[in-house]
């Protein structure tokens, strides 16, 4: 495992990205990307636009098949595992441009998160007796008592998703991901387009999820203030390659990182902390 400054014991690693390369035709989206996500940590992937962050997420989710390299989840190689199967293993994610189901209510959207862990078959469903009914009611109770209360969305539970403002939709998407019983939660830009207050709310939810739900978090985020505040480990991508990784403090002063961001104007300064900007 190249490019790892800190060696981790194998059992501490929940997700290992091992030499992943991805190309679309002649465009190389990712080149030999390797890093590890420690169990119980918040790991952030940052980098300028087009650095390959979302491509990396899509590779981990199983939408893209890497040209070479491998993704290892909890000691098990994910090569050849389809996205639905990855969901069953405990890999959950949210999307940059919110992928909720517009025609459904908030409650139904969250319920969908549990799909992979339920057993109701077609015939049970048609009669809604026995297992189907029991499973649905258990799910409803758990969603109400654990997820809806936790994320403070009681007031919108029966609202159609299409009517909700942006910040709340992001929160509903997080709720749905939590219903998936995730072991690794991947958040693609959880606070993009949010104001200061909404960002702080979301940062608090992310920290609480980590603590109370015992979930490891891997996120892509542009808001440097939040990344530096809450992450344990930061991976920096540029042009599809890992150019640095380490603690937030170490990454901020890494010459390669500063150089990568300097090309983008004052981002270099923003990187050295919100106060300096």
């Amino acid at each position: 495992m190249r490019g790892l400054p800190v060696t981790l014991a194998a059992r501490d690693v929940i997700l290992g990205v091992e030499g992943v390369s991805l190309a679309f035709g002649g465009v190389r989206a990712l080149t030999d990307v390797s890093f590890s996500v420690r169990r119980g940590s918040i790991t952030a992937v940052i980098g300028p636009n087009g650095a390959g962050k979302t491509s990396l997420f899509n590779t981990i989710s199983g939408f893209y098949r890497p040209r070479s390299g491998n993704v290892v989840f909890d000691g098990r190689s994910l090569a050849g595992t389809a996205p639905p199967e990855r969901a069953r293993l405990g890999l959950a994610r949210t999307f940059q441009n919110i992928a909720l189901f517009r025609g459904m209510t908030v409650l139904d959207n969250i319920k969908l998160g549990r799909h992979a862990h339920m057993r109701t078959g077609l015939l049970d469903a048609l009669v809604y007796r026995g297992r189907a009914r029991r499973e649905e009611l258990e799910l409803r109770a758990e969603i109400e008592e654990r997820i809806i209360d936790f994320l403070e969305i009681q007031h919108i539970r029966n609202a159609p998703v299409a009517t909700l403002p942006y910040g709340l939709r992001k929160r509903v998407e997080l709720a749905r991901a939590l219903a998936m019983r995730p072991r690794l939660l991947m958040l693609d830009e959880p606070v993009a387009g949010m104001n200061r207050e909404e960002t702080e709310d979301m940062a608090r939810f992310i920290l609480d999820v980590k603590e109370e739900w015992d979930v490891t978090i891997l996120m892509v985020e542009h808001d440097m203030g939040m990344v530096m505040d809450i992450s344990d480990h930061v991976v920096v991508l540029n042009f599809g390659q890992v150019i640095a990784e380490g603690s937030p403090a170490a990454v901020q002063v890494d010459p390669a990182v500063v150089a990568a961001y300097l090309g983008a104007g004052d981002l270099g300064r923003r990187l050295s902390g919100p106060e300096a900007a």
Partner: protein
Amino acid sequence: MRIGTLKTDYAADEALFDTRLQKLLILLACAAAVLFPFVASPYWLFLACLCAINVASATGLNILTGYTGLVSLGQAAFMSVGAYTVAVLEIHAGTPFLLNLLVGGLLTALVGIGVGIPSLRVKGLYLAIATIAASVVLHFVFAHWPLTGGMQGLSMPPARLFGLALDQPFQLYWLILPVTALMVLGAANLFRTRVGRAFIAIRDRDISAEVLGIPLLRYKLMSFAVSSFYAGLAGGLWAYFFRVVTPESFPLVNSIFYLAAIIVGGMGTILGGILGAVFMTMVPELLKFVAGLVTPFYPDALALLAPVRTIVFGALIVGFLIFEPHGLAEIWRRIRRFFHLWPFRT
């Protein structure tokens, strides 16, 4: 007016009919359905049976097209599979009619799965064309296969229950209506569970459905299977109702009729399938009635009926697409909402 919901557990909140008024209305509707055959003329019973058959089929199509978002123009062809199966079983095997219906439904479900296989790759218009192609193939098979009687089709004996022939609308009503009611109830239940939610997820955003752990092909085929099972049952009921099944009994126009019914009724709602099918079945009768009223003043009215019927159908579909894209079910919802707030806000 609704003062409060007063629910104390989740089971009450997840119930299909969750207010006392709703339960009362359902009870009244059931009572009316039971009393109806004793007061109605055979003509009205005939119409009621026809409506019920169309409701069953439209509900099936609604599962596939309205809820799963897979456009199908093969519903009539699927019905023909069920109808022929029932006819062949009734003529050659003489098995009990409920078994025949079930076998017809299951066989149609298998055919539906076969037709649904391209749905992983093709969507929208392309899938619609694929289902038309399947309809043409099925029509060809039924028109040329000796077992299905070629172009003459099959004439079959009536369904029998303890030696009693069910050959009048009055008797068939007791077969058709309960079966349809069970089918509609099953569809309503389906969308209270993970299976139904997976269908809707595939309709709304199939990529994120996959990330949530929904295998697309499996659920698309399941939707095709349920939908064509419904079509097969409806076709079987149709066969018992008319007792003659020919290749021309289920033309492509009928598939369009069912698609129009769910558009007019409201795609993706159980109520929409019911209202749409009843509405579309009754429009010709309404036109006939109007023509009858006009005849004294305009003797050619009845001759004009056929072309006017086609024009009215077309206008209805266009009108609903433009003015009420969510269909009759949405109008009903608006009425309900009004009375929830009435008389405090009007």
